[in-house]
């Protein structure tokens, strides 16, 4: 279709319009002064930067909209910004007002080579390929392929010691039968009476060396303790028996992507993960009621020892944290 109709003719490049500075020496002189002024402003910016370097870092200046600003930081930054920006402005103003502004035309050639060259090129490639005999000598071709492939894959082995194998590490935490729940921070054992109804606390398993807890351990051991009135629970008998006087314990590590599930809404008794907004209902054993998490937060079975301190009755019954391929396989 487009070939049949006659298109409107190309009138060619519009005539060049000269700038004032091209023929008026006064205008050219003015443009030159403008460019020089911009370079001078840049130099002043550098002076500001150097001066600001020596401002003590406890001096503040009031800037409208922004409020009190640290004079040292602000001066350094603004000085640098001015010194750089006006070099650029000067150069561009120079190019626009004083350098030639007549557009020029360069010719473009199709990348495709003349057919004779292309044929020679293809013939050369073919001849070269034929000379190696790769097409006929399939034994060489196959063994070469195998050798190159193997030599590329096998160095992966050298990366083997980047880390240990997970084995069952992802399935274990430091919680054991009889481990005391201790406050974090503080590392104090907790009695049921320490926690008022409606309260929430982060706890960790008691450690021999609480000063030097490893982040790797906290990443699996962090537990959230929430106290409700026992009649507020909506749990089966087994899960209810894992609580103590309305105190229920969940892994704080989100079952979705491992963030700390830190937001507890007291009125609705919902736990919310701030990363992806998975919402868990505390009264129903952290059942997922909203968001992308697919599983409830694992519940820790707790009780008290003879002196009334909270302890774990068992380790977690399932791996905590995000899912992985072998999570529920033995």
């Amino acid at each position: 279709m487009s070939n049949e109709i006659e298109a409107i003719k190309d009138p060619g490049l519009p005539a060049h319009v000269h700038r004032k500075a091209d023929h008026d020496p006064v205008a050219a002189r003015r443009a030159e002064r403008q460019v020089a002024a911009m370079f001078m402003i840049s130099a002043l910016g550098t002076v500001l930067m150097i001066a600001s370097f020596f401002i003590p870092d406890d001096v503040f200046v009031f800037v409208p909209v922004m409020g009190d600003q640290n004079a040292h930081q602000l001066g350094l930054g603004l000085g640098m910004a001015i010194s750089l920006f006006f070099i650029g402005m000067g150069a561009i103003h120079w190019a626009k007002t004083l350098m030639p502004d007549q557009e020029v035309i360069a010719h473009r050639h199709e990348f495709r080579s003349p057919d004779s060259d292309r044929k020679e090129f293809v013939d050369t490639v073919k001849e070269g390929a034929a000379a190696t005999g790769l097409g006929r000598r399939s034994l060489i071709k196959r063994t070469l392929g195998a050798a190159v492939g193997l030599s590329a894959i096998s160095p992966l082995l050298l990366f083997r010691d980047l880390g240990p194998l997970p084995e069952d590490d992802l399935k274990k935490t430091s919680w054991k039968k009889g481990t005391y729940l201790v406050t974090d921070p503080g590392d104090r054992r907790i009695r049921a009476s320490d926690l008022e109804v409606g309260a929430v606390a982060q706890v960790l398993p008691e450690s021999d060396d609480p000063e030097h807890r490893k982040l790797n351990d906290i990443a699996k051991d962090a537990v959230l303790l929430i106290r409700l009135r026992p009649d507020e629970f909506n749990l089966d008998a087994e899960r209810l028996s894992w609580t103590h006087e309305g105190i229920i314990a969940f892994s704080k590590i989100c079952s979705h992507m491992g963030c700390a599930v830190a937001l507890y809404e007291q009125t609705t008794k919902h736990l919310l993960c701030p990363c992806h907004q998975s919402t868990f209902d505390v009264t129903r054993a952290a059942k997922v009621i909203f968001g992308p998490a697919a599983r409830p937060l694992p519940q820790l079975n707790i009780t008290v020892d003879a002196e009334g301190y909270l302890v774990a009755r068992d380790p977690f019954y399932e791996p905590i944290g995000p899912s992985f391929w072998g999570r529920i396989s033995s």
Partner: protein
Amino acid sequence: MTTEHRLGQVANYVDERTGAAAWMKKNLQKVFPDHWSFLLGEVALYSFIILLLSGTYLTFWFDPSAREVIYEGSYEPLEGVQMSAAYASTLHISFEVRGGLLMRQIHHWAALIFMAAIVAHLMRVFFTGAFRKPREANWIIGIGLLTLGIVEGFLGYSLPDDLLSGTGIRIAEAIIQAIPVVGSYLSYFAFGGAFPGEAFIPRIYIVHVLLLPGAFLALITVHLMMVWYQKHTQYPGPGRTEKNVVGYPLMPVYMAKAGGFFFIVFGVTAFIAAVASINPIWLYGPYTPGQISAGSQPDWYMGWLDGLVRMAPPIETYFFGYTISWNILIPGLIVPGILFTGMALYPFIESWITGDKREHHLLDRPRNAPNRTALGAMSITFMIVALINGGNDLIATHFDLSINQIMWGTRVGIFVLPPLAFVITKRLCLSLQRADRELVLHGRETGRLLRLPSGEFVEVHEPISPEKAYLLTSHEQAPALELATEDARGVKRAGAIRNKIRSRMSVAHAEAVPKVSTEDLKEIESH
């Protein structure tokens, strides 16, 4: 001794030692077309240089180590707190190194500008069809740079080991861990054991400062050399053809403009860094896996990914006792994989649809490629919906909305709005084509009303200039492919279904308002 004379001597010196006179002359006179949208790629390039400079500065003080230290610096609220050396040294750069905070902020702002410029440049290239033959390879390199940029940015803001970035790493770890079969192994290899471990910070550091910048340098070099070799595309207009390049010579105009523009980009970045705080890590505190702050947000170029993860349905399946986390795999790996692969392959897909295998050096006006423009609008809409959900918590608190409503809104919106954007954009493009046609046929509305002797009011139209008329009609309107699905005897051919799909897409792609031809104009004149 004038400057010219001295520069002449330099040229002489260079040539006597390299014999490059002919080559240099040709390239110094190389013509670059001028258009504001060609500056977007330049912004990306200059931001990259700023990133190299400011990043190198930061390495002089940054200690990429997860080693535990007790903070004893000048920031009082964290006095005596246990933290990693990485976090402590970032505090040191921020509070004790003079100019350190400025450079940190320049580095972070430059990274955001870098990514924004890449995305804007990508849109320019897409919507104007600059990716068409012979520039497909450069398009793919561009997609590679975008992808690397996202990874590089993520690693960069993860390095300070503050509470926010540690949370980001935790999420990345969960994505790795969710990969079927090998996920937990890959995670243990990457982290040198369990999360977070002590190996990760030094490892991502070397990737961030050596491996990826090296890859960037190599790819950017190839990207620019190809632009140089293939010559820049140009917008259509009078005097501009597929066979020429109209613009300014490299020496001196383009050199002065581009060099000046580098300083402007650097200056603006420094200005933003001077007045706008970014990533104030001292407020977040050191990373510990048991804590988090509300309103955790990634940088903007990761926000869409986070938004997809947030809106994913809570689906996990069990397959012979093995767990597959669709809620992580779909938004975290599968959808981004499809998006980026599709984007990389788009030049080939389009040329398959149109059957167009010719070289193109004149850009399209987006309205003249309605299908492509609509597809672009659809993709952007998808990303924006995802990005909105990535900030759903902040939107909820700022605008007093329920997070559940926003989540459901975007869950529905991600399916409904992109196709809607496609339809609307395509209609808009066709309407604009119609407006162009009207303009060429009947001229510009002057707003002057005339009362005819008969009492009738008419508006005076003024013919547009021949240049403008040419611009509005110079584009090509290729017909749709006609592919037979049956042979002469009505028997279905092999590949009939493929041909049918291709024909349909080709018809959709070729939809256009016929442009004005000389015959049309003659006909109008004869009235």
